[in-house]
């Protein structure tokens, strides 16, 4: 086998940068591992699950998508480019890769979103077979797997107790990286590290089914009480994609911005009339579950949840979607 030593990762990143790629990888940032653009001197932690997801690089937190420039006689509307950069996403887990497929569907639905689309086209995904999982992971409950290659342009696999990796390209984009990965790899003996074990916690079909007939259920009230209504889950979720359009102006111009939004925010569905069809947190929590497990499934054929577990890890009140799904599935089985 040809193996890439983990100690060569910084050199690999530098070489990819030299080829004109923006290199995004899990990087040690003080106490936290974050997926971000690699800079010389950064420590790549390829085997660590980053706190954020790759959607940051295809669908950023905020960006200008339009502009009006004001002048004496009126205004001119300016078309803004997509600002896509040739990018390699390095070490992305199969759950995060699967979530991108959902974003692909949404941003091409009805109206091709060039801001997402051009970035996506310029991005090469190098996925990593999961070497480890924790109690919050549940990809296997939502149609995924820790060694799934679906959606990836190339796969990395850890070997020899996590000290080396193999690289295998699968698509044209992936093959374009063969040379540079080959440059930092050498032949060697390798024992492939075992794939992480992710036990199935629930049947998502059962959850979808229950959601389809439980809009009026009083269970939502109990389920939604602990929710504080922040955006931590939605913003860190690799599959969430709701956004808000805001115009910000100076004397000279108006910038039309697209910012992340969360269905958990109290004003998410507040109408200009003052009416809010989701007036309380249980209604908003219901929306979160419904969107992911019912509406998205109905429209795009997949649930908008890939079992990455971030919501459970990051929620200030520990509301993991997997816990909710297990409760629903358990209640259904009892019934």
């Amino acid at each position: 086998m040809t193996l890439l030593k983990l100690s060569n990762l910084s050199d690999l990143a530098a070489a990819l940068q030299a080829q004109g790629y923006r290199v995004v990888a899990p990087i040690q940032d003080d106490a936290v591992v974050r997926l971000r653009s690699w800079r010389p001197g950064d420590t790549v932690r390829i085997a660590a699950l980053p706190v954020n997801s790759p959607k940051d690089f295809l669908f950023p937190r905020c960006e200008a998508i339009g502009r009006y420039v004001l002048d004496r006689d009126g205004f001119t509307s300016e078309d803004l480019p997509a600002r896509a950069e040739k990018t390699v996403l390095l070490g992305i887990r199969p759950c995060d890769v699967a979530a991108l497929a959902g974003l692909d569907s949404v941003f091409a639905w009805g109206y091709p979103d060039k801001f997402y689309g051009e970035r996506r086209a310029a991005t090469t995904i190098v996925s990593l077979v999961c070497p480890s999982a924790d109690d919050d992971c549940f990809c296997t409950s939502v149609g995924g797997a820790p060694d799934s290659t679906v959606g990836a342009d190339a796969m990395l696999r850890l070997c020899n107790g996590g000290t080396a990796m193999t690289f295998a390209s699968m698509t044209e984009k992936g093959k374009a990286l063969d040379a540079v990965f080959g440059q930092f790899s050498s032949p060697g003996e390798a024992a492939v590290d075992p794939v992480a074990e992710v036990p199935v916690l629930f049947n998502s079909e059962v959850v979808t089914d229950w959601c389809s007939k439980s809009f009026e259920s009083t269970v939502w009230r109990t389920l939604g009480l602990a929710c504080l209504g922040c955006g931590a889950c939605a913003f860190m979720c690799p599959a969430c994609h709701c956004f808000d359009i805001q115009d910000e102006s100076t004397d000279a111009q108006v910038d039309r911005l697209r910012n992340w939004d969360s269905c958990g925010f109290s004003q998410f569905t507040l109408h200009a009339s003052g009416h809010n069809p989701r007036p309380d947190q249980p209604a908003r929590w219901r929306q979160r579950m419904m969107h992911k497990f019912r509406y998205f499934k109905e429209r795009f054929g997949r649930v908008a949840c890939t079992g990455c577990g971030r919501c459970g890890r990051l929620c200030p009140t520990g509301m993991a979607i997997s816990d909710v799904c297990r409760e629903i599935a358990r209640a259904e089985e009892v019934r």
Partner: protein
Amino acid sequence: MTTTETVKDTAGDVFQPRLVAFVCNWCTYAGADLTGTSRLAYAPHVRVLKLPCTGRIDPLFVLKAFEGGADGVLISGCHPGDCHYSSGNYHARRRWAVFRRLLSLTGIDERRLQFSWVSAAEGQKFADLVNRITDEVRAAGPFDPSNPARRLPWK
């Protein structure tokens, strides 16, 4: 070299700071009017914003000023005991004591946020104050565009 002399320089190399002054209507604004009617010249780089009372000044105004391009901010009102609304300046004083430390902690040079009491009779004080503050902010230099308080144009 007094500030008024420096002001006579045309474009040149001298950095001219942009100052925003939030002042109360009854004391400092009237005091500034007196400065003018007394024909006292002072550094012209300040934009004066009139409010009914310093008690109305929200810390957000200061943030907006720095966002929008100010190099320095002055807040000025009635002396304690003279507030037209009795206690507005007392509330303001308490607010600023905390806010100025917070802004300093987060990276805005203390010379850039200044406070004063200027009464309606203190025309000379207003001129001297603006001149001195202009010098101090000039010495602090242009507000760093990489400071997170500054609003940058959207790309």
